[in-house]
């Protein structure tokens, strides 16, 4: 607040003052309301049909951008063939509601006529069936058909790396228009569909005026902004972003990558399919040339410009680029012509700036990637810096009240191991990383796994957590065989892990990271996310409470930083966050891979205490460590691995006495020196 009298206000500040007094949420609502009013009122102010038409086209592309935003921006799957789904939606409606098919009339068609799907057309000597599927039914149907193809085209890409995935989707994006062009009986090929029907509402046909389409388009944008926002801020949205950030970690946190990637493709394709119907109904024709690679690139440019993952950014960018193309450049060229005539410059009189729009697209792509990769409206909001107090607060150890719902020792049959590994073998090419390893971890104990670098410790973890499948051997959890179970299901069974080299979801906040950790314990799907069902709201509440409890374990280390993105945290805090994330899945046993790596002695001791307290809660811990003081202090039992084989097992004293262990660490000569 500027107190009057200390300095004079500028006009801008004076005007903005009442606005600044509102809370940020209220500010947001105000901006949105103003924009909505502007959108509704626009055709009444500017009565030029051409302008309204261009705006209606812009709405279609805004919806396309929203759809691609889900696939690329949220889930991180670079789809370069998105126009294919646009085409599929368009031709679905085009074929079911135009003159493309006109078989001879027969009584077979009577029930369809009764349903209103076809019309018996007899005039000009013809007696045929005219397909007239209602636009309002066709649009959701087209979305479903396109979603089906989204799954079909996405399925082969599931295991591919980013750039290869892009190329495969590009391939599909090219194949669809070619098929359309070469299948004239279905699509009239290159000549384009004839007479696609305009939508009609309560008997009023939209015809060729632009305003009804414009309002329909605005309605579509509003609806899909709503759906996108709801999805983004939900379990599904977080799972998508986790896949985008680090697929492997996402799987290890319980995210079923196959299902969620296919869901992303399907939802994105669905948006495009619905838009295709809208677009072709407006145009009343469709040609395969309308859906080629440059359209896919244009939508990509829109989301790069707007901000990948940012719902409003993408809509803004789509509107800007479309209007640039249909209004500004044409008008600007006109102004240039006038200027050229006035100045007498030949070149200026002839110039047509609309030619340069593709060049502008290319320049936008390059400049945005180089200088502002997060786009115009970044998806992750900048967070407030911590106050001085918070930054200089003395660290406090947390209290342990968290209910991890572990299996209490008394419930188990005596003698059941928490984790048991029998004769496990894994080879990569010529190298056997894990050779006939046996081990047992008793419930409620802390077991440490040590050994020189390259001895196969992390590989063993990967086998236990389902990231690789063993060649031979058996792994069981509480007596149940879990050999070969994939990583996202392992979490459900009760094994959680951290990673040697930190695999956090870097662009997600601390809170979001921990919420993803609970993915396997929650079940709200896309539908629940959009509709905000009671179950979903209850689930969100519970998961947030649980997350706060877990964060409390680490005292005030993470608590004030809940809304900071993970990559901004200090190294030690990132390590803690990874543990918190693993704890969130309510595991029975926690696998920690070098949890104190890189921490200073004070931090190391603190973490060791926190791990001990976890054991007090009944959690079993199995950790890989190099710092022998930590190992000695924490571990009930130590296992030593060298070149994939277990060479020692026992308490700290037993293990350190063994010559094989010394040899493994220090070499033969020194060991026997």
């Amino acid at each position, binding site marked *: 607040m500027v107190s009057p009298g200390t300095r004079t206000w500028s006009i801008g500040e004076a005007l903005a003052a009442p606005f600044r007094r509102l809370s940020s949420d209220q500010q947001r609502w105000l901006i949105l309301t103003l924009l909505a009013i502007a959108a509704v009122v626009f055709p009444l102010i500017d009565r030029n049909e051409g302008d309204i038409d261009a705006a209606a086209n812009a709405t279609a592309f805004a919806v396309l951008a929203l759809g691609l935003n889900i696939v690329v921006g949220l889930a991180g799957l670079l789809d370069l063939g998105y126009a294919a789904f646009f085409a599929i939606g368009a031709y679905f409606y085009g074929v079911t509601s135009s003159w493309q098919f006109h078989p001879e009339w027969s009584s077979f068609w009577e029930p369809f006529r009764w349903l209103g799907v076809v019309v018996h057309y007899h005039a000009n000597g013809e007696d045929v069936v005219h397909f007239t599927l209602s636009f309002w039914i066709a649009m959701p149907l087209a979305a479903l058909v396109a979603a089906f193809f989204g799954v079909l085209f996405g399925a082969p890409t599931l295991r*591919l790396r980013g750039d290869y995935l892009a190329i495969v989707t590009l391939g599909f994006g090219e194949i669809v228009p070619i098929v359309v062009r070469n299948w004239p009986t279905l699509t009239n090929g290159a000549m384009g569909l004839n007479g696609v029907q305009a939508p009609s509402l309560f008997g009023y046909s939209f015809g060729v005026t632009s305003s009804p389409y414009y309002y329909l388009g605005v309605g579509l944008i509003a609806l899909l902004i709503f759906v996108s926002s709801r999805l983004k801020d939900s379990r599904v949205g977080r799972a998508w972003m986790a896949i985008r950030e680090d697929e492997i970690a996402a799987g290890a946190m319980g995210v079923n990558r196959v299902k969620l990637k296919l869901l992303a493709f399907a939802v994105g394709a669905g948006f495009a399919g619905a838009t295709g119907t809208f677009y072709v109904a407006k145009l009343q024709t469709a040609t395969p040339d309308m859906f080629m690679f440059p359209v896919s690139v244009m939508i990509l440019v829109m989301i790069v410009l707007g901000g990948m993952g940012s719902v409003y950014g993408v809509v803004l960018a789509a509107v800007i680029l479309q209007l640039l193309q249909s209004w500004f450049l044409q008008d600007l060229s006109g102004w240039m012509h006038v200027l050229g005539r006035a100045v007498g410059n030949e070149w200026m009189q002839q110039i047509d700036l609309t030619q340069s729009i593709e060049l502008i697209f290319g320049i936008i792509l390059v400049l945005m990637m180089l200088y502002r990769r997060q786009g115009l409206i970044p998806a992750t909001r900048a967070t407030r810096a911590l106050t001085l107090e918070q930054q200089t607060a003395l660290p406090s150890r947390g209290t342990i009240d968290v209910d991890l719902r572990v299996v209490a020792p008394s419930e188990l049959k005596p003698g059941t191991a928490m984790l048991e590994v029998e004769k496990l073998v894994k080879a990569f090419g010529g190298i056997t990383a894990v050779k006939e390893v046996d081990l047992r971890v008793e419930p409620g104990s802390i077991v440490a796994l040590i050994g020189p670098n390259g001895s196969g410790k992390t590989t063993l973890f990967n086998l236990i957590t389902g990231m690789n499948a063993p060649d031979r051997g058996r792994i069981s959890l509480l007596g149940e065989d879990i050999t070969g179970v994939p990583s996202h299901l392992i979490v459900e069974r009760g094994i959680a892990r951290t990673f040697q080299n930190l695999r956090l979801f870097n662009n997600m906040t601390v809170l979001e990271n921990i919420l993803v950790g609970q993915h396997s314990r929650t079940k709200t799907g896309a539908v629940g996310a959009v509709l905000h069902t009671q179950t979903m709201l209850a689930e969100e509440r519970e998961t947030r409470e649980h997350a706060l409890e877990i964060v409390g374990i680490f005292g005030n280390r993470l608590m004030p930083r809940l809304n900071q993105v993970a990559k901004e945290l200090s190294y030690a805090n990132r390590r803690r966050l990874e543990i918190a994330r693993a704890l969130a899945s309510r595991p029975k046993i926690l696998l920690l891979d070098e949890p104190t790596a890189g921490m200073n002695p004070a931090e190391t001791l603190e973490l060791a205490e926190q791990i001990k307290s976890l054991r007090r809660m009944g959690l079993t811990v199995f950790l890989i460590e190099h710092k022998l003081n930590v190992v000695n202090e924490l571990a009930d039992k130590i296992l030593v691995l060298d070149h994939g084989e277990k060479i020692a097992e026992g308490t700290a004293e037993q293990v350190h006495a063994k010559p094989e262990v010394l040899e493994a660490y220090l070499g033969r000569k020194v060991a026997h020196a």
Partner: protein
Amino acid sequence: MTFGDVLIQQVINGVSLGAIYSLLALGFTMVYGIIELINFAHFNVFMVGSFLAMYILEALGLNGQNVILTGFPLVGVLAVALVGTMLLSGALGVLIERTALRPLRGVPGTAAMITTIGVSYILFNLVLLTIGADAFNFPNPMPKVRWGEAGVVLQLREVLVWIVAFLLMAGLNYFVRHTKMGKAMQATAQDQEAARMMGVEVDRVVMITFFLGSALAGAAGLVFGLYYNYTNFAIGYTAGLRAFTAAVLGGIGNIPGAMIGGVIIGLIESLGGQLLEVRWTDVIIFSVLVLVLVFRPSGLFGRAAVTKS
């Protein structure tokens, strides 16, 4: 022509076509092999290269197919054109690397690839806006020599393409395997960090990689123009997709693989067109691309580095 004759002719067609795709795939696959970047702009550097070659040949006094040379003058003119085109295209490649790609060197994910899409668009549209959409009659001093007439025909231009493609491939292979810079490039391809720690100037290596790759694209542009007596602003597009598939098929990053991949794609195109219909060629080639990437991403000869663990 007997059916046997037709088949042989189509095989010759396919292999010649394939040689052009190989040439185009060479530079592309080399760049990918060393910095793991899918460079969309490569194929428009090829297009720009063919225009550069056209201007060089016109400057040397050639015009359409009206001026025919033989012997030393012919070799001399072609050599000048080749060297000039390669140098200029290489320079273009270095410019692209320096301005658009170096700043993105450490960024994970597909950011760099998206940038190459942007660069590709920029090149394409600059040519379209300045030179226009016309097709051009490419100056060609080679005499029209052909062997065979009614049956199977072999043309001098086809032999030229094979010779140039093979020589360039052999040259590139030798360079990469037996020179110091080539070894530095191999090291960078394996592990950039480690190479840097061994004293390899990674920045310089990447720059030379781009120079070479783009120079090869330019050479492909010259050969294309001489082969078809034609060039225009759109030649990068389809030739690009075919060459890309050839690189992937042969094993992306593998130089002899690119040659073999190119020939296979050329044969698919000619034999597929003969036995089915030419209109389906695109669908067939794209299907090959998708199938290879999904079922055998390392291609025929490449390193397996495509899937995640």
